């Protein structure tokens, strides 16, 4: 009985620790500023995306804030909602970190045309902190 009781306590502790760990240790790699310089006939477009720890993000083009929304990440999937479309609707993209400092977005599902056109296939590079 004592052995079983100890085993249950240990298993219970592991379960509690695992549960706690899954909620306190998160993948923070997306946090910060990401940049892409896009060439156009009228000159370069300097795109910056800011992902914050409070699950908000902003998009900036040539220093102009142009998009503002919320995101959450589960495994390799990011869900995004912003003011370019219905703010209650979340589009989903597969994210992939590569080359140590870069990130790509591939659409899984997004009916927001404007966002899909901007985000599907987007590759951005992490900006160094000033």
């Amino acid at each position, binding site marked *: 009985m004592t052995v079983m009781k100890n085993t249950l306590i240990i298993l219970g502790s592991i379960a509690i620790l695992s549960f706690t760990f899954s909620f306190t240790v998160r993948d923070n790699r997306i946090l910060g500023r990401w940049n892409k310089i896009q060439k156009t006939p009228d*000159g370069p477009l300097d795109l*910056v995306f800011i992902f914050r720890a409070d699950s908000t993000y*902003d998009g900036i*083009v*040539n*220093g102009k804030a*142009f998009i503002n929304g919320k995101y959450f990440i589960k495994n390799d999937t990011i869900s995004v909602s912003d003011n370019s479309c219905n703010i209650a609707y979340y589009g989903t993209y597969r994210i992939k970190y590569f080359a140590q400092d870069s990130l790509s977005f591939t659409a899984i599902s997004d009916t927001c045309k404007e966002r899909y056109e901007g985000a599907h296939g987007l590759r951005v590079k992490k900006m160094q902190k000033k």
Partner: protein
Amino acid sequence: MHESEPASAMELGKLLFSDPILSGNRTVSCASCHKENFAFADTLALSPGVNGRLGTRNTPSAMNMRLQESFFWDGRASTLEEQALIPIENPLEMDLPVDSAIARLNSNAFYQQSFLRIFKENPSKKSLAKALSDFERSLETNNSPFDDWRVNDNEDAVSASAKRGFKLFNTKAKCIQCHFGPDFNNVEFRNIGLFDGRMHVDSGRSAITHKKSDLGKFKIGSLRNIAVTAPYMHNGMFKSLKEVIDYYDNPDLIIPKAMNRDTILIRPLQLTDTEKLDLENFLISLTDRRFLK
């Protein structure tokens, strides 16, 4: 006399923009209506051109043109180069055939030399359009309190009221459905209810496309620097942002029998006075610090 020789097409365009040489009677320049202190817009509902002739639509700001896909309230020009020459020829604006403008520039030693140095050719329609449009492309603004808040995470850049206004802008007030993107407009044309076929007869976009569905539609205006670009709308009928917000809140109170008005505005928004003030404060926060006193 010009103080210094322009070193680029943009600098040449800047000089030409303010030079009445491009108007029929040499009294009006682009800058006569696009006034720098007012974000290159005018303070009048309709601007006077040569001999005091009034235009038919409100002078839009010439700033933040770089990302635009169409120009003029009815979108008649699809490039900035195309846009740049149209007011020169318009009898109500500068009233000078472009060929005559080119001849003038060719007979002006300063301009002839400047074009030759910059474009490696004498003044032409193409190079004149290039110079003026390059100058307009340089008129970008990205230093508003709103930008400071969102770009630099400066929570003190805008007031709590303006932050509430931003939320309203995105939700209850529905502004975001047309005014989004870096310049708070998009590429569409919309009918906000300022055409009734009686008192308000500017048919807008439909005069260009000849489509009945475009009746009363106009280009969605940028909201950047909005605090200094009154009066508002294609006809300059609203003198203040408060009037604009009151209109959107309940368009039927101002123009009750509008034709083809957008379904977004089918019902009153029912904004409270506090919400209207919050929206106004948010809109003011879109104005570049160079214009905010």
